[in-house]
């Protein structure tokens, strides 16, 4: 997966939790939770979905790095996948 595909897949994960969002209006360098009405359990579900979709381990101590769309993509690009994403 290249960066663009990863970005699209991350947006798809967020949309699966918050289907009402307009993906075109997401500002990549602003915290996602400032733009989308996601409570803490929704956000936890986003992280769980990212973990499963990309087959990566996301340590709780890394949660603070996953604030913006750009940051999430950078994080996933840098993480070795356990398997090919499904």
């Amino acid at each position: 997966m290249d960066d663009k595909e990863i970005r699209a897949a991350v947006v798809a994960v967020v949309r699966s939790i918050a289907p009402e969002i307009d993906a075109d209006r997401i500002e990549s360098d602003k915290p996602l939770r400032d733009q989308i009405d996601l409570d803490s359990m929704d956000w936890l579900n986003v992280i769980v979905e990212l973990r499963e979709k990309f087959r990566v381990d996301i340590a709780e101590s890394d949660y603070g790095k996953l604030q913006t769309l750009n940051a999430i993509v950078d994080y996933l690009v840098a993480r070795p996948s356990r398997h090919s994403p499904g």
Partner: protein
Amino acid sequence: MARYPAELIRKRYLFDGSEVTIRPIKADDAPIEADFVRHLSPESRYSRFMVTLNELPATKLRYLTDVDYDKHMAFVATLPRDGKETEIGVARYIVDPKGASCEFAVAVDDAWQGSGVAGILMATLMDTARARGLTSMEGIILASNHKMLKFARQLGFTLHHDWDEPDTIQVVRPL
């Protein structure tokens, strides 16, 4: 005096990257518990205690902090602020007299709501109750507290309306 279960102390991380300590409450925590309650918004305080109060009476404060870790278990979430340990959330359960189920209560500082700390506290509480052989957990939530009702649903609780008590909703889940 009950033995302090230090083996249950954990370091956890919130969504903003803050490191918090999740640990069983202790009698010495009375001052930070009092500060915590004092700093809750009136709405949060009412949601938690279901009465209007500004300060916890000394007897209530002792009841909330000096627990036996058996029939009454409570965890606080704390982090350092201005050089001292500050409580940002607390969750507890009380075992019912039959010994199989328990009733929970949780409160989070207004500034830390949405940080993930309530989920961590509740997961810790449910894991502890389960490990101690309890089979169900229940709670009473104000019917007007939609955020808390959604949170309970997300944690796997089912909602039960008692039409004799229309202002509150009972939530229950197996452990």
